[in-house]
């Protein structure tokens, strides 16, 4: 088991940054997800930790040991690939035994440990099949077994569920999560699927355009996005973001649509807008509640049933974007009907339109 520390690690291809200098400490036994759209540098980061990609500058420490320039085989980590990378000329059992043979483990010890792992993952019946004869899910189970068998100090997984069918994905997600809980190994997991990231991680590292946007627990990333990118990227749909004009404690979105700024945010908002100016207001669909005395008025643009609730798409008019709001599934909202909704003051966030960064409430400071 290990802690992984990245110190000012960066990667350049030519003059372009693949990963801008980043600092990150992953605690022993932690499950950290690197999340971001494709091309954001998350896989490059993972490959630098594994040693498959050389860093341009910076340091990587594994358990305090500087491994920046060590060969991948000397780092004692396991890598699970998106396309499994099972050796096609070997059977499942031989694939799992392969890492142990590199360490010249005695033969009966190899057999014992391979059997243990196959049993742990409940894939003993597949031991003698070739990878080509197996389903995607089973191939990934064997790839996991191959990673586990060596008892490495850390696991690196590069979109391990990306190549699986949707139905397998849910099952494998639960299996990996369970596996992590039972062996409690430090895991770094790369994905572009934010649902996966939310479901599995202890902490999420959101990356975009080679830059780390935010590091935090799933709840932090969801409720307190550090900037507009994270606000839009996390959640489906993402956070509703409305651009308004602020003055004297009220944000107006055109016409009579106004929202009072909660007291905790007043000082911060005043400071950023210097008493009045443009401001971006963000809220999650579940922060809004449709009610007759709501302070914001909108017309129904569309509505769809999501099983447990309905998602209303509301048009505020005045060139505001469509906002998405959760509503009771029992009510029926005809298109173009007028509705009113209010926002939970605890769940409204504010962003500076110039820096795109989230504002911090200063209520605690004032107390």
């Amino acid at each position, binding site marked *: 088991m290990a802690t992984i520390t990245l110190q000012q690690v960066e990667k350049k291809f030519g003059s372009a940054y693949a990963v801008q200098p980043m600092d990150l400490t992953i605690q022993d036994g932690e499950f950290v997800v690197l999340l971001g759209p494709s091309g954001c540098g998350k896989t490059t980061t993972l490959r630098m930790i594994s040693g498959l990609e050389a860093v341009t500058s910076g340091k990587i420490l594994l358990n305090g040991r500087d491994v920046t320039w060590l*060969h991948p085989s000397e780092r004692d980590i396991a890598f699970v690939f998106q396309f499994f*990378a099972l050796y096609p000329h070997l059977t499942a059992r031989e694939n799992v035994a392969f890492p142990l043979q590199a360490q010249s483990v005695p033969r009966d010890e190899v057999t014992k440990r391979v059997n243990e792992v196959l049993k742990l993952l409940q894939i003993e019946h597949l031991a003698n099949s070739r990878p080509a004869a197996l389903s995607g899910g089973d191939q990934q189970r064997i790839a996991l077994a191959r990673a586990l068998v*060596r008892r490495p100090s850390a696991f690196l997984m590069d979109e391990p569920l990306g190549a699986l069918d949707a139905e397998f994905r849910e099952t494998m997600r639960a299996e990996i999560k369970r596996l992590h809980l039972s062996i409690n190994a430090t895991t770094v997991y790369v994905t572009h699927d934010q649902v996966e990231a939310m479901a599995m991680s202890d902490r999420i590292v959101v990356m975009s355009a080679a830059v780390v946007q935010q590091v935090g627990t799933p709840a932090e990333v969801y409720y307190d996005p550090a900037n507009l990118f994270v606000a839009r990227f996390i959640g489906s749909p993402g956070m509703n973001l409305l651009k308004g004009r602020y003055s004297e404690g009220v944000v107006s979105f055109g016409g009579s649509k106004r929202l009072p700024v909660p007291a905790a945010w007043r000082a911060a908002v005043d400071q950023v807008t210097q008493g009045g100016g443009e401001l971006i207001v963000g809220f999650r669909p579940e922060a809004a509640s449709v009610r007759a005395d709501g302070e914001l008025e909108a017309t129904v643009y569309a509505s769809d049933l999501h099983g447990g609730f309905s998602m209303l798409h509301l048009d505020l008019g005045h060139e505001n974007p469509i906002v998405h709001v959760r509503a009771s599934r029992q009510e029926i909202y005809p298109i173009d009907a007028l509705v009113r909704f209010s926002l939970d003051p605890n769940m409204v966030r504010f962003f500076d339109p110039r820096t795109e960064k989230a504002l911090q409430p200063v209520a605690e400071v004032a107390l």
Partner: protein
Amino acid sequence: MTATTPRPTFEQSGPRLPVVESIRVDRVHPRARIAGSVRATLAIILSLISLIPVFWIVLTAFKTPTDVTAIPPKLIFEPSLTGFVSLLSDMRLLSQAEQEERSQQPDLSWVDQIALQIGRAINGPSQYARQLGNSVIIAGTSTLLSVVLGLLSAYAFSRFNIPAKGDLLFFILSTRMLPPVVVTIPIFLMYRSIGLHDTHFGLIMLYTVFNLSFSVWLLKGFIDEIPREYEEAALVDGYTRLQTFFRIVIPQARTGIAATTVFCLIFAWNEYAFALMLTTQNARTAPPSIPSILGSGGIEWNTIAAGALLFLIPVVIVTFALRQHLLRGVTFGAVRK
């Protein structure tokens, strides 16, 4: 200025003829099915036609000199090993008296008896046996060298960031851009002055150099097809680059290695012009020798056919042994993905 061209309609861009063939096996248009069997029949007929010379060589090799020249040609005859015996042995003509004397001898070996049938006695092994041996040594060694060296450099070209990679690859290929025969005279002169003339090493080196460009390019294609993840997985699993090469790359490049081996072997085995120019006695290979087996009393067709047949056998054996890899290999490198 790029004016926006209207998108072509289906009539313009779509198929002009009705699609009669489908890759789905369960739904094949009857017309396509008939076309399919016609094609198969044609293919069989064509391959039979192309096999006629080989068939004729085999027949001729087992004929006696009299059967060879019989008119009309004999399809059914008593097989004889005369051709092979006179190919592989050096013989002298016997006079009538000597023939009778020898036929009385009880301890004649079966080879001597065959020689006696055409009125000759065996002095010893012929040059051809030795030349066939030379061919095996030279073609075998140069094939081995070209495949091993080609595999190593193909791997490097495929996986590592080599400065001026494209230029180097072009340079390697450019050695193939003129007909080799053009350079026979300069090479002959060079070989003579540095003492490589008529040596095994000289021909091995020459054939290896000729084959290398081919094997590097062919093998690079095959290695490019092997996903890097396999090697990366092995690297992370604790193997060194070299171990990974032997345990992961080579098993997966088997098809390519087999195909390259066969092609290199066929080239080195069949090479005629250089072998004729650069060798005389010591390192002479089989191809330039076959035409010189003309014999003393007229053209001995059965001997020549036997020579050609013996010459074919080693390549056929190797190709046959590797045929499974080869059949996949020929289409594999080109089409996948």
